[in-house]
């Protein structure tokens, strides 16, 4: 019983983290049809920026809670600066290219950003545990857990709701739907598709960076952290259905809970199960469990 509760809680907090990272990827794919490998870099940069600034401001005597502000600021700044730069400098010139070229270009950007991290932040790991330490711990079903990881669950819910409201309830969401459905018809109807792409990419980048920034306090932030994250979020997005936010939720929950179960019972299968499920879903429902309404011409 205790173990089941532990699996649930571990799985949920891991899922939340996966969701926050993956939702940006799925949004970018949905709108721009770009599978962005550089998403792993947004994550890494978000984590580095947050860890760096939390360490810096903590050293200057700022209170612990200020870390939360820094997490948000880091995510927004990283997304805005790096996201905008990539869209403007690289992707803008590539929309007419073949899909595989765009994918590879994002891979190139990923490689470049991996090393720029080293050049900017050096090779030493960063720690930003202050926000996590501030929130302390709570005992659930006999296991003590950090409140911080639990708040990630809350953050994931807030982000999911915000995305849903934005897409389903706002004028913006409807414009986005038109572009998702058909870029050309959007243009013909006066939508500045380039602007939509910029906003989408920057928003997606911010979400990716937020994933990194939010998880930074629980990690040693060190070079290479983006490599595993990117395939994990691919798995999440593919399982749920590429381009679907509900799908990202389902995908993250499945991956998170599966992994937690594996770690508790058969640790050797921890990684395998994730990709086995990804393959299985692709085989049974290639569009993903929560495929968005297919871009079927009616």
């Amino acid at each position, binding site marked *: 019983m205790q173990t089941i509760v532990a699996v649930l809680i571990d799985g949920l907090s891991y899922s939340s983290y996966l969701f926050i990272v993956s939702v940006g990827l799925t949004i970018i794919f949905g709108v721009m049809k770009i*599978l962005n*490998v550089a998403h792993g870099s947004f994550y890494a940069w978000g984590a580095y920026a947050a860890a760096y600034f939390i360490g810096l401001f903590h050293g200057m005597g700022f209170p612990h809670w200020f870390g939360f502000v820094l997490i948000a600021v880091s995510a927004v700044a990283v997304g805005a600066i790096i996201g905008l730069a990539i869209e403007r400098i*690289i992707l803008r*010139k*590539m929309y007419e*290219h073949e*899909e*595989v*070229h765009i*994918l*590879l*270009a994002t*891979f*190139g*950007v*990923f*490689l*470049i950003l*991996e*090393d*720029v991290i*080293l*050049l900017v932040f050096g*090779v030493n790991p960063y720690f930003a545990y202050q926000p996590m330490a501030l929130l302390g711990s709570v005992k659930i079903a006999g296991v003590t857990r950090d409140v911080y990881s639990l708040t990630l669950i809350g953050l994931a819910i807030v982000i999911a709701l915000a995305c849903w409201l934005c897409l389903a309830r706002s004028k913006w969401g409807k414009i986005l739907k038109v572009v998702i459905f058909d870029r050309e018809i959007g243009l013909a109807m006066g939508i500045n598709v380039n602007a939509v792409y910029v906003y989408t990419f920057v928003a997606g980048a911010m979400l990716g960076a937020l994933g990194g920034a939010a998880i930074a306090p629980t990690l040693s932030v060190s070079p290479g952290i983006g*490599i595993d994250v*990117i*395939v994990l979020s*691919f*798995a999440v997005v*593919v399982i749920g259905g*590429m381009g679907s936010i509900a799908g990202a939720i389902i995908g993250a929950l499945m991956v998170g809970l599966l992994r937690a179960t594996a770690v508790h019972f058969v*640790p*050797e*299968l*921890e*990684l*395998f*199960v*994730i*990709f*086995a499920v*990804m*393959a299985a879903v*692709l*085989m049974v429902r*290639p569009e993903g469990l929560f495929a968005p309404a297919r871009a079927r011409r009616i």
Partner: protein
Amino acid sequence: MRSLTGDRTVRGVLIGFTLLAIAGFFLPAWIVNNVMFGLARGLAVLGLLVLLRTGLVSFGHALYFGLGAYSVALLEQLAGVTELVPRLAGAVVVAGGLGWILGFVLRRYRGIFFAMLSLAFSMALYGILVKTESLGSTDGFSVSPTVLFGWSPETRHVFLAMVAAVCAFAAIVVQVYLASALGHLTTAVRDNEIRVEYLGYPVARSIHTTYVLSAMLAGAAGGIMAMALGQVDPDSMVNWTVSGELVFITIMAGAGNVAAPFIGGVVFEFIRTYAFELAPHAWQLIVGATLLAIIFFLPNGLWSLIEKPWKKLEKRRD
């Protein structure tokens, strides 16, 4: 006309690889090594090129590359095999076998779904290897030097010649395949699948055949890599970044000719070696920047640099 160009390519491949094998005896060891690594990668890229002609891009070809490499390592661990021929055969058979099985599934997929399913399969293998102690976990295995019919040569030059022979053979097989009716069919599938289907040709089967061929090439490539390097491990052989690198070399090389992958593979190996030497903290940056430069300025790959003057020359001759 087409068979004529085919002949010319075959001749070019034969001459090129023969020269390379001979040159190998005069090159310093480190260049021999890099050329071998480059040829091994080139062989896997040749597999991707075959798929690309069908319009498919696999983001998980490290599955077969790694499988080939691990076949060589495990053959040695379990049965003490160090002979070149059984090692290579093992790599090709294991990779081709799995390719044949997975092909039944993958042949139904196109575009991004094909890429993602390939990725999933390769990462599943990665997940198993990394977490299983008896399979070497993250360490992998060492591979002892390859023996050639009971003879273990002092230098690696002989081995380079063997690798060159294998690559030449593979390139010619692919060239012949692409020129065959089945090969033409795959290209037609890329251009208009439905039309091919209407004409009554079995699209799924031709994709399946191509896929198995591609898996065998990547398996051989991994096997050669393991032998050339003397080491296998999941991060360098099976992780998604390896698949990414292979696709990168495919684009860098260009899909115009069966010789292109080998040129691309060798160039990549030298770029990496020098990038690493000049800037150990920024070698990925250099590789990434090269990738972007190729995509932007040389979208048809290095081969277009060779092809253009060649075509000009031919025109003049005509």
